[in-house]
């Protein structure tokens, strides 16, 4: 495979630095007023109106079993399209956009910072850190 350069949006989930293909990202916004959904699975923070679309906000930390994401001025929603619908991923904070050479991406270890390896496509090194490449589809695959 030719060396493909992928731009990655990176962000922190708990203490783990994760990244995803920036083309998957619709937009990143600050927390907006959400409508809570009683009886929803606990990782669902609520739903909000994104220009006429109903978006489900998911606490990525909870979803990946990393514990609840603390809401503060740094926390952001990453709106992604997954399986034909908009989903917002609540993360602790956003980090840089980095370029990754796809052939430098190594297969994921069994776990990264306590996250199950199955949610990752691989890991790659930047100058000073290790980024886990999140497999967004996988995250939503096992509904609960």
């Amino acid at each position, binding site marked *: 495979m030719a060396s493909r350069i992928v731009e990655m949006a990176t962000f922190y989930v708990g203490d783990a630095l994760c990244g995803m293909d920036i083309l998957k990202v619709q937009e990143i916004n600050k927390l907006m*007023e*959400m*409508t*809570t*959904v*009683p*009886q*929803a*699975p606990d*990782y*669902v923070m609520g*739903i*909000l*109106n994104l220009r*006429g*679309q*109903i*978006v*489900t906000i*998911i606490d990525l930390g909870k979803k990946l079993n990393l514990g609840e994401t603390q809401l503060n001025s740094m926390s952001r929603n990453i709106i992604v399209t997954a*399986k034909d*619908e*908009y*989903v917002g991923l609540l993360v602790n904070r956003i980090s840089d956009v980095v370029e990754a050479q796809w052939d430098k991406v190594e297969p994921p270890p069994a776990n990264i910072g306590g996250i199950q390896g199955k949610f990752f496509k691989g890991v790659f090194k930047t100058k000073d850190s290790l980024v886990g490449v999140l497999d967004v589809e996988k995250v*939503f695959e096992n*509904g*609960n």
Partner: protein
Amino acid sequence: MTIQDDETLQMYLEESVEHLADIETDLLAIEEAGADIDEDLVNKVYRAAHSIKGGAGFMGLTTIKDLTHEMENILGKIRSREMVPTPEIVNVLLLAADTLKALMDDVFTSNEVDISQHIDSLQTIAEGGDLSAAAGQPEEEEEEAVQPQECETSEKDVPADDVEKISISAAETGVSIDADPTMIKNLMEEGKFVYLVQIDLLSDVVNKGRSPMTFMEDMEQTGTLVACSTPPDTVRSMTVEGQAAPDPLIVLFATILKPEDVNVLFEIPEQKIHQVLPDHTVRCLGAETPEPVSTTPPSHPSENVPPENVPMEPVPEMVAEPVATKTPTEKKSPTQQKKKRKQTDTEASLRVHVSLLDQLMTLAGELVLGRNQLLQSMSSEDQRGADIAGQRIDLITSELQEAIMLTRMQSIGNVFNKFPRVVRDLSQSLEKQVELHLEGKGVELDKTIIEAIGDPLTHLVRNAVDHGIEIPDVRQQAGKNPMGKIYLKAYHEAGQVNIEIADDGKGLDGRMLVQKAMEKGLISEDQAKVMSDKEKINLIFLPGFSTAEKVTDVSGRGVGMDVVKTNLDKLGGIIDIDSEMGKGSTIRIKLPLTLAIIPCQVVMTGNERYAIPQVNLEELLRIPANQAKDRIERVGDAEVVRLRGNLLPLIKLSDVIGTSSIYTDPNSGEKHMDRRKSISDRRSKESPLIADETTVQTQPQDGIEEKQVLERKSKDRRYHSNSALNIVVVSTGAMKYGLVVDELNDSEEIVVKPLGRDLKNCKGYAGATIMGDGRVALILDVGNLAQMAGLTSIEASSRATDVSQENLQALREQKDRQSLLLFRSAENEQYAAPLSMVERIEKIKTTDIENVGGKRVIRYRGGSLPLFCVDEVANVQPLADVNDLLVIVFIVSGREVGLLAIGPVDAVELSLEMDGQTLKQSGIMGSTIINDHTTLMVDVYEMVQTLNPHWFETMDTVTDNDGKATKILFAEDSNFFRNQVKSFMEDEGYTVIEAEDGAIAWDLLQEHADEISIVVTDIEMPNMDGFELTKRIKTTNAYSHLPVIALTTLAGEGDIEKGHKVGINDYQIKLDREKLVHSIHGFLSGK
């Protein structure tokens, strides 16, 4: 096939489908009229059939052409009153029309479709019709007698000598013929067209492969021969040889075929056909050609242009008018026809009126103006201007919405119109008499809804005919009109469309329904007791409920009303039944006008807004705090409110969805968590909710607030007006209940948006919507809320869903169902043994047990029954030290043994999901969970073998000739049983080849063909079952000698018989080791 080009074909098809739609309704009308034939109607159908036929011939659609031709024949006879349209005849015609429709749907393969059946039946009628008309239909003749102006009678007039004749001639061609003017007049009054036709028998008839004879017949079938230059009989017998061209035949011919269609019959140049107008002048059909036609030699088949391609003047109006003015009887006919035609137009296309489009355009323009105004006001910060612009836009938006909605609206008549046929066919096949009344055909609904309600409505109408209306005898006995009535009614009410299907049949028997539901385990006896009559009737919506005593092809397959209900639920509609025994049933359906935008009531609970669709909304109720005590009562553990003398169950929204409700302090405007647990909040000692409250109190985070609330509770805070109860009375069709919410807000029109995947499991919501302030509000699904809150009738339906799923599951797992005897040895360890192995159970006292020779026995029927207990063999808790013991008697190796046990004993039948590993030890096969207890399956055989090894030494293992162990092919899909039975057989010294299903077994058999001496197979297996496997083995020469033993858990008589048929040699119970081994041994040694 010579299909010309797509466009022409498409046009033809569209037109034909329109014709067919008309044909159906018209045929039904014709049937209804019976002997009192409505000429116009028959003519219309005839014409429709004829145009279909003509087009088909042109397109090369021979099958369609042949079929319509036969239909036309019959219609021709009906028209000429040779035949009375009896239901049978109309039936055949309708069937043929159906087939035509099917042919049209798949026009490209239509020529390959076999329609001989229809042709045959049509022909039989066409031939036999004469007979029956002569023999069996005296009324018809009477009919003719009293209507002297009819065509046959007038034809009789023709030969009469005293008739004055006039000459009709086409000046330009010099063609002329004498005819009887009154006859022509009569024919025209019947709506027929009269044509003067010049036919060259050689080029127009013979050279086209027709004989003069068939040509004349064709003509007579399609119309009336008024006059003919050569006597018809002469023409018939004429043989036209070679080039000898006889004189052209001149014919005055009356037919219902319109000028543009008539040439389908003659297939001659247009110029040779002249239409005779009422004033006895003629008009040439090929009028565009100015030169006299007679000069053209009438012998070029190439000139024979197919009628569709001939440019023609639109003439029908011109023809119809004089006819209409002449006879009063005909007056309504053209208008009728015009009306019909107009209707067809709107049905066939989704055309939008230009006026509507114009309106939309204007509104769009206004919207733009409004926006400009708004933008300007905003930029200049002109608050007043913005207000005005906002109001304007509000107005325009509503109008725009309405106008756009209109473009999507279709009349429900589109759906209703098919029901007369449905009812007719069904009532005929069920031998019932049913009359269908349609009302409100003009009610309009969104296109998507129209499309979606077709099936549910059909189902309901069919149900009404099949289940509702009784057979005429029964009706008469009940003192009713033998003719049953079904009313289908649509009307607007409260912004919704209501559809009612009412019958005056036998009605629903609530008690019977309850009984049925209980039999099927859909509801419990307790539930049944508390059900209202209405709830009982609504039981028929439960999944898996069917009242038909026998399954007919009409209904009774058990997937009836629940499917209807689900379909309607999907549309946001609700369905409701009222029924009175012996009087009939009424089914009411409420549908929203459209799916996209629905009016909703907005409510507030726990600081969030929720929307309740107006469809479900019955009324809003506010109970002042000081009345709450009196009006709200507890029945059982449910709270109900008294509403106009009825008790209405209450559900607190915050409880159901698990939020906390908010109480607004009326003085300070502060919001507090509402701590009232019970709605009426009567702190009676009996209330179980008191206990709840104490648990709440212990929750640390609201401890302080809780105390305050408790303090306040002792005061009269709920007498403030703001603590009044807000109740939304909602209805789900089957029931009404009150939903208690914190606040009632406005009612709004909302746009439904779907919820994301992660929220699909939240049953309480039907979707979400965006409110004016941009926030999202959830739309409540009141049906599911009631279910979540456990209100009776709906609980039953969830139970029904469960049960029907369980049943399915059970069906699937039936193969592994086992009857087990449950018992205990120590108090807290549950054991199970296959019931089939248990001989009997005895009660004994501990003192009866004797210890003889190191073994425990009990004297029993003059002998000694050896006793043992589970803990002797397996490492389990010792037998409980009690006085009263049970002895479970098994027969092992021909001897009785008793297993000591204690109660309670129970027999259960369940599908085993046996874990053959975790708890397996000697004497224990494995474990399973029964009634929430881990249960050990005892292996009696192994126990006895361990304790009394010498009992088992008698049997020799059968070996094959080489002294090698005999191989057994064993097919079984359940892991547990496979391992278990395999070990039985291996213990006996056999080699076992395992297969997981029949297909694998079959492959293995072929692989190891020479080695296998016997096949043991389970019956129920995936891919290939035991029957099929056996069948294959027995029908293959190489294997047919192999004995096959089938293993079952429950051998039913039917199965055994079926098994014997396919060649199963023996049946054995799966876990009856001894018998199985004996059977194998028997087969092998007997070989």
